[in-house]
C-alpha cells in the first residue's frame, strides 16, 4: 500500500511540475496562428547527391551565402547553414565527392567540409590570404583524395579527409600571368592554367606527390582574355577554346603540343549568332578520370551543339536548334544530355540524348509548363538515374530568371516549386480581403442609387436568397468535414473563395522582392495565391508600394501601385495592379519622362475612391495619378495645405516644399547638414494609418499631461563621418515637416550606428552602439504639450507657438538588433510593444512601458499611482517575450505590422531570409474568448443549473401545497 501511495504522490508531483512549466505560447498553439517559410536565395551551385541510388537530396549553395540540402520529393529543407552576409561569407565553389561537400568561402578565406547526410561539419581550414581563382577535386588511380585550390599567387593541395594541406606552391610569374583555372585528369598531375590577356597562355604542371613543377610552357593565344569564359578541358587533357572574333575553335593537347590548333567554325559548317558570345561546356563525371570527349557548344541564345573530339577531329554529333538550355548528367556509367527546347508559348519540352552518340533516348520527353507570370528558364539541373531495366530516367530542376526552382518528374508532373525570390523581400503591404460575393452584393445594393421600389425589393430578396444558399452550403460543408478525420480536412484557399473573416484577421500580404517578382500570400496559411514577375527590373532599383484603393469601395476593385525607380538613370515606372488577384489593372499608368525624386499618397480621393498619388520630378514639378478633372480641381482647392519634404543624403540637404495651384512647387524651408561632419542616414515620419486613442497621460495626481501629437513631425537620424571611437557621434533631429522648425535636437557622443529608429505617437525610440561603454543602448524621447492643450480641435503646424516639453531616458540592451518596429492596432487603445528583430533570429516583443522617460529613479506615491516602473539602466530580455519561440527567423531585415479587426490583435510579418507571420496581443486578448475556451463545460453547467432550478422550483411548490393541506 505504501508503494502505491508513493507512486501516487510522484505522479501528482510530476503533474504539478508539468503544469508550472508553461511558456508564452502553449504547446497546442504552436503553428495555430503563425507560420514560417525558410528560403535559400538565388541558387548559384547545385549538386544532386548521387552516391546512393535512393538518395533524395539536392545540395544548393546560393548567392545569399546559404548552403542547404533539399528533399527532392517534397522540396523541403533537410538542413540549412546560413553564413555571414556580404563578401565574407560568399560561397566561391561547391565540390562534392561521396558523402562530403567542400565549400570555398569568403574569396578563398575558408575551406569547409560538410557531411551531406546530416549536415554536420567535418572540418574547417583557414587558407593563406590571396584572392580565390578556382578549385577542383584531384583524383589519382581511381580514387579521389585531394582537392586543389588555385589563388592569385599560390596553389595548394588539401586532403579531402581532414583538410590538411599536402603542399603549397607559389605560382611562377604570377605578377604578369593571371592564373584562372585548375584542372586534373586523374593522372597524378595538377594543371594550373593562366593567361596574359591578348598575349599568351601559361600552363604550369605540378606533380601531385610533392608539388614540384614538372613542366611549364607558354602558348601563343592573342585572342584569349578569360579562360573560364571561353575554354574547357575535354577528353585526355585537350584544352578547347572558342573565340567569337576569329570564329574558331582552338585545341591544345596539354601533354604534347606547344601551339594551338585553329579550327574555323565554317569548316564545321557552323555559324555564331551575331553579337553572341559562344561558350563551351564539358563534363567530367569522375575527378579520377579524364573528362568526356564530348562537349556542348552554345552558339546563340537558342542554339546548342553536341560536339565530339575524335582522333584530332571535331565531329558534330547533334545540332539542337532551337534549344534554350542544355546540360550533361551522369547515371552510373551512362552520360546523357538534357536539352530544353521551346514547344509553344506556354510550354517547353525536355529530351534526353545519349552523350556518346547524340541519339535521342526514347520515351524521355518531359513537358515543362512556363508560368506566364514567371521568368524564362535560366538553368537546368538534371538528376539522372538508372531504372531497373538499365535505361536512364531523370528528373529536372529548372531555375528561372525569377529565382524559382521547379522540380519536374516525367512526363511533366511538377513535384514542387520553391519561390526563392521571397528570400529577398524589399517592401510589403497587407490588404484587407474583399467581403464574400453575397456580402459585397448586399453592400453594393445600398451603395447604388434607388431605381424604383419594386426592383429594390426584388433585389433585396434575391440577395437574401443568395446568402441563404451560401449559408446552407457552408453548413453542409461543415457537416461533411466533421465526419472526416481532422488531418484530412484541408482548407483549400484559392482566390475564388477568399473572403474576409469576421475579425479581419486574414489578410492578403503583397510582397515586393528585389528580383522584381510580386507575390500575394494568404496571411492565414502562407500559401502563395498569386505571383507576378516584372521583367526588365534594373539591378539597383528602388521600390515603393502604395495602396491607392482598399477593398472597401465595392464594386471598384482594390488598387495598388508600385513605383519602380532605376537609381542609375533616375527614371521611374509605375505598375498598377489589383492586390487580391495580382492582375495588372485596367488603369493605364502615366508615362514618366522625367526622373522621379519622390512620391506622395494624399488622403484625397477621386470620384472612383482612388487616393491621389503625387509624383515629384527632378524639376520639382508635380504630376498626379489619377489625373482626372475632378482630381485636379480638388488639388487646386487644397494645394495651399499640401506640403512635402525631400532629403538628399549626398548633399546633406533637407528641404520642404509647398504645392502651388498650378502643380508647381515653392521651397518653404531648407536645413543643411554639413556633409563633412555628418550624413543623413534615415528619416522616419509617422505611419498614416496610426490612431492614437488617448490624447494624454494621467499623472499620479489625476491631472493630465497632454501628448504632443504632431502628425507632421519627422525624426532625422544623422551619423558622423568620422568613425574614430572617441569622436564619432549620432544625432537625432526632430523637425516639423511643414514649417521646418527644429523641435528638438539630441546628440549622442561616442556612439556609432547603425541606428534603428521607431517613431510613433509622441515618442521616438532609437538604438545605437555606444563606443564609450562598448554596448548597445536604447534611447527614448517623448514629447508633451504640458498640462493644457493649445488647440484641441485642429492641429496646424503653422500655429504652434509653444515648444513641447521633451523627456529622454536611455537604457542598456544586452544584444545588438537587426530591425525594429512598433505594434499597431485598429483604434490605438491597446498598449504598444516594440518588436525587435535580433541577429540570433528571435523576435522580441518589448513592452513600451519599459522605454518610458518618466520612469522615476526614486519611487514616490505618485509614480506608484501611475504604475511607473522604477528606472533600471538594464533592459532585460525575458525568454517569454520571444514571439517566435523556436521558429528562428534568419537575417531579419524588416518587420511589418498591421492592425486587425480586433483591437487587441496586431498582425506581424518578419521578413529576411525567412518569412514569419504571427499575431501579437500586447494587452492580452481582452476582447475575445481564448481559443481553448471550454464552451462545452460552460454550456453544460448552465443547462444543468437551469434544470436544477426548474426542478427545485417544482419541488418547492409541491412541498408548499402539502404543508398547506396539513
Amino acid at each position, binding site marked *: 500500500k505504501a508503494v502505491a501511495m508513493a507512486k501516487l504522490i510522484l505522479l501528482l508531483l510530476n503533474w504539478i511540475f508539468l503544469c508550472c512549466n508553461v511558456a508564452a505560447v502553449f504547446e497546442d498553439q504552436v503553428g495555430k496562428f503563425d507560420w514560417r517559410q525558410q528560403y535559400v536565395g538565388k541558387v548559384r551551385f547545385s549538386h544532386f547527391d548521387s552516391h546512393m541510388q535512393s538518395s533524395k537530396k539536392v545540395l544548393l549553395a546560393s548567392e545569399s551565402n546559404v548552403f542547404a540540402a533539399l528533399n527532392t520529393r517534397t522540396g523541403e529543407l533537410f538542413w540549412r547553414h546560413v553564413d555571414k552576409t556580404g563578401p565574407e561569407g560568399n560561397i566561391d565553389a561547391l565540390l562534392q565527392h561521396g558523402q562530403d561537400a567542400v565549400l570555398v568561402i569568403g574569396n578563398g578565406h575558408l575551406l569547409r567540409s560538410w557531411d551531406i547526410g546530416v549536415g554536420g561539419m567535418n572540418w574547417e581550414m583557414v587558407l593563406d590570404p590571396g584572392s580565390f581563382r578556382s578549385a577542383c577535386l584531384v583524383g589519382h588511380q581511381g580514387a579521389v583524395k585531394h582537392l586543389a585550390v588555385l589563388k592569385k599567387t599560390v596553389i595548394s593541395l588539401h586532403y579531402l579527409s581532414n583538410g590538411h594541406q599536402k603542399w603549397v606552391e607559389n605560382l611562377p610569374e604570377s605578377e604578369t600571368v593571371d592564373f584562372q583555372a585548375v584542372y586534373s585528369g586523374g593522372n597524378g598531375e595538377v594543371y594550373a592554367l593562366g593567361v596574359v590577356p591578348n598575349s599568351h597562355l601559361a600552363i604550369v604542371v605540378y606533380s601531385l606527390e610533392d608539388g614540384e613543377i614538372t613542366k611549364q610552357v607558354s602558348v601563343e593565344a592573342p585572342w584569349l582574355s578569360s579562360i573560364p569564359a571561353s575554354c574547357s578541358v575535354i577528353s585526355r587533357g585537350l584544352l578547347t577554346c572558342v573565340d567569337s572574333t576569329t570564329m574558331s575553335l582552338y585545341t591544345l593537347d596539354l601533354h604534347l603540343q606547344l601551339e594551338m590548333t585553329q579550327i574555323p567554325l565554317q569548316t564545321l559548317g557552323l555559324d555564331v549568332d551575331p553579337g553572341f558570345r559562344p561558350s563551351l561546356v564539358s563534363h567530367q563525371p569522375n575527378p579520377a578520370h579524364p573528362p568526356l570527349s564530348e562537349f556542348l557548344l552554345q552558339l546563340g541564345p537558342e542554339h546548342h551543339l553536341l560536339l565530339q573530339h575524335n582522333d584530332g577531329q571535331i565531329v558534330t554529333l547533334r545540332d539542337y536548334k532551337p534549344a534554350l538550355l542544355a546540360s550533361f548528367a551522369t547515371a552510373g556509367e551512362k552520360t546523357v544530355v538534357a536539352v530544353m527546347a521551346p514547344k509553344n508559348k506556354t510550354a517547353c519540352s525536355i529530351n534526353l540524348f545519349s552523350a556518346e552518340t547524340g541519339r535521342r533516348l526514347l520515351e524521355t520527353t518531359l513537358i515543362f509548363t512556363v508560368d506566364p507570370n514567371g521568368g524564362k528558364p535560366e538553368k537546368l539541373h538534371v538528376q539522372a538515374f538508372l531504372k531497373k531495366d538499365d535505361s536512364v530516367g531523370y528528373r529536372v530542376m529548372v531555375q528561372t530568371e525569377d529565382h524559382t526552382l521547379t522540380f519536374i518528374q516525367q512526363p511533366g508532373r511538377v513535384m514542387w516549386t520553391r519561390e526563392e525570390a521571397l528570400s529577398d523581400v524589399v517592401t510589403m503591404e497587407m490588404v484587407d480581403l474583399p467581403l464574400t460575393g453575397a456580402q459585397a452584393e448586399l453592400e453594393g445594393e445600398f451603395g447604388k442609387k434607388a431605381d424604383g421600389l419594386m426592383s429594390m425589393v426584388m433585389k433585396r430578396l434575391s440577395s437574401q436568397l443568395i446568402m441563404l444558399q451560401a449559408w446552407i452550403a457552408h453548413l453542409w460543408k461543415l457537416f461533411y468535414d466533421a465526419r472526416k478525420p481532422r488531418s484530412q480536412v484541408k482548407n483549400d484557399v484559392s482566390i475564388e473563395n477568399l473572403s474576409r473573416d469576421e475579425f479581419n484577421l486574414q489578410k492578403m500580404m503583397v510582397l515586393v522582392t528585389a528580383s522584381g517578382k510580386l507575390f500575394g500570400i494568404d496571411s492565414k496559411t502562407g500559401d502563395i495565391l498569386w505571383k507576378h514577375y516584372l521583367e526588365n527590373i534594373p539591378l539597383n532599383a528602388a521600390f515603393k508600394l502604395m495602396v491607392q484603393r482598399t477593398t472597401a469601395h465595392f464594386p471598384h476593385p482594390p488598387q495598388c501601385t508600385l513605383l519602380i525607380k532605376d537609381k542609375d538613370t533616375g527614371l521611374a515606372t509605375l505598375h498598377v495592379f489589383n492586390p487580391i488577384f495580382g492582375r495588372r489593372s485596367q488603369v493605364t499608368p502615366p508615362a514618366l519622362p522625367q526622373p522621379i525624386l519622390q512620391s506622395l499618397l494624399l488622403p484625397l480621393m477621386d470620384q472612383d475612391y482612388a487616393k491621389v498619388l503625387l509624383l515629384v520630378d527632378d524639376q520639382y514639378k508635380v504630376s498626379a495619378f489619377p489625373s482626372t478633372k475632378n482630381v485636379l480641381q480638388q488639388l487646386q482647392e487644397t494645394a495651399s495645405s499640401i506640403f512635402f519634404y525631400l*532629403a538628399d*543624403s549626398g548633399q546633406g540637404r533637407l528641404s520642404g516644399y509647398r504645392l502651388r495651384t498650378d502643380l508647381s512647387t515653392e521651397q518653404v524651408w531648407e536645413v543643411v547638414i554639413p556633409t563633412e561632419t555628418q550624413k543623413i542616414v534615415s528619416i522616419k515620419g509617422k505611419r498614416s494609418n496610426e490612431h492614437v486613442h488617448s490624447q494624454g497621460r494621467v499623472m499620479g495626481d489625476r491631472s493630465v499631461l497632454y501628448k504632443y501629437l504632431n502628425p*507632421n513631425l519627422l525624426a532625422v537620424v544623422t551619423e558622423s563621418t568620422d568613425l574614430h571611437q572617441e569622436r564619432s557621434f549620432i544625432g537625432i533631429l526632430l523637425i516639423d515637416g511643414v514649417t521646418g522648425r527644429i523641435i528638438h535636437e539630441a546628440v549622442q557622443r561616442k556612439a556609432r550606428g547603425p541606428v534603428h529608429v521607431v517613431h510613433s505617437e509622441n515618442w521616438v525610440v532609437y538604438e545605437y552602439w555606444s563606443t564609450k561603454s562598448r554596448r548597445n543602448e536604447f534611447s527614448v524621447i517623448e514629447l508633451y504639450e504640458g498640462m493644457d492643450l493649445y488647440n484641441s480641435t485642429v492641429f496646424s503646424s503653422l500655429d504652434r507657438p509653444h515648444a513641447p516639453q521633451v523627456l529622454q531616458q536611455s537604457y542598456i540592451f544586452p544584444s545588438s538588433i537587426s530591425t525594429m518596429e512598433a505594434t499597431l492596432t485598429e483604434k490605438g487603445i491597446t498598449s504598444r510593444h516594440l518588436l525587435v528583430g535580433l541577429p540570433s533570429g528571435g523576435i522580441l516583443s518589448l513592452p513600451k512601458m519599459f522605454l518610458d522617460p518618466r520612469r522615476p529613479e526614486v519611487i514616490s506615491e505618485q509614480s506608484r499611482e501611475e504604475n511607473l516602473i522604477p528606472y533600471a539602466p538594464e533592459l532585460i530580455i525575458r525568454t517569454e517575450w520571444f514571439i517566435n519561440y523556436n521558429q528562428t527567423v534568419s537575417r531579419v531585415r524588416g518587420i511589418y505590422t498591421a492592425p486587425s479587426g480586433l483591437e487587441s490583435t496586431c498582425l506581424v510579418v518578419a521578413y529576411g531570409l525567412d518569412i514569419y507571420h504571427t499575431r501579437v496581443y500586447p494587452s492580452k486578448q481582452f476582447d475575445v474568448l481564448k481559443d481553448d475556451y471550454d464552451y462545452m463545460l460552460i454550456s453544460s453547467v448552465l443547462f444543468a443549473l437551469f434544470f436544477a432550478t426548474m426542478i427545485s422550483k417544482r419541488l418547492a411548490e409541491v412541498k408548499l401545497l402539502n404543508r398547506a393541506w396539513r
Partner: protein
Amino acid sequence: MASPGGQGGGALSTRGGGGARRMKWALELSVGNTRSRSDRQGGQGDVVYPIGYSEKPVPDTSIQETDKNLVEKRCWDVALGPLKQIPMNLFIMYMSGNTISIFPIMMVCMMAWRPIQALMSMSATFKLLESSSQQWLQGLVYLIGNLLGAALAIYKCQSMGLLPTHSSDWLAFIEPPQRMEIMGGGMVL
C-alpha cells in the same frame, strides 16, 4: 437595518391601532374609559346606562399630557435619526479606507442610497410628523440630516476618486485633433 424613519413610523402605528386588537375580550367595570364608551355607542346605543355611569366624562389630563409628549419625542426621534447616523457613518468611512474594492464600494453605495431613499419618501415622513406641533422644524432637521448623509457619501466617493472631477476623467472623450496640413515625402529615392 431598516431606516430610522420607517422604524419610528411602524412603532407609532402599532401603538395606535394595536391597542384595541390586543384584547380578545374585556370586562369593563370602571368608568371614564373613552374606548368602552365608543364601543357602547357604536354597538348598543340604546342600552340603559349601568349603575354608576356618569354621562360626563371625568377628564384625565395627566395621561393626555404624557401622550402628547411621547408623540413629540417620537417625532424628534424620527427627525434626528439621520443626524444620529452620521458619526456611525464617519466611523465606517474611516474604517473602510480609500481603496477601490468590493466592500468599500458596497459601503459607499449604501451610504449614498439610504439618504436618497429617505429624501424620496419625504412626503411619507411628513405624514408621520403631522401629529407633532413642530412639524416644520422637524422636517427641516430631517432633511438636513439626510442631506448631510448624502454629502458625506459624496465626500467618500470623492476621496475614493470615484467622482469625475479631474481633467483626466474626461480624457477618453477628447477627439483627436483634425489635421490641417497634408505632408509627405522622404529620402530621394
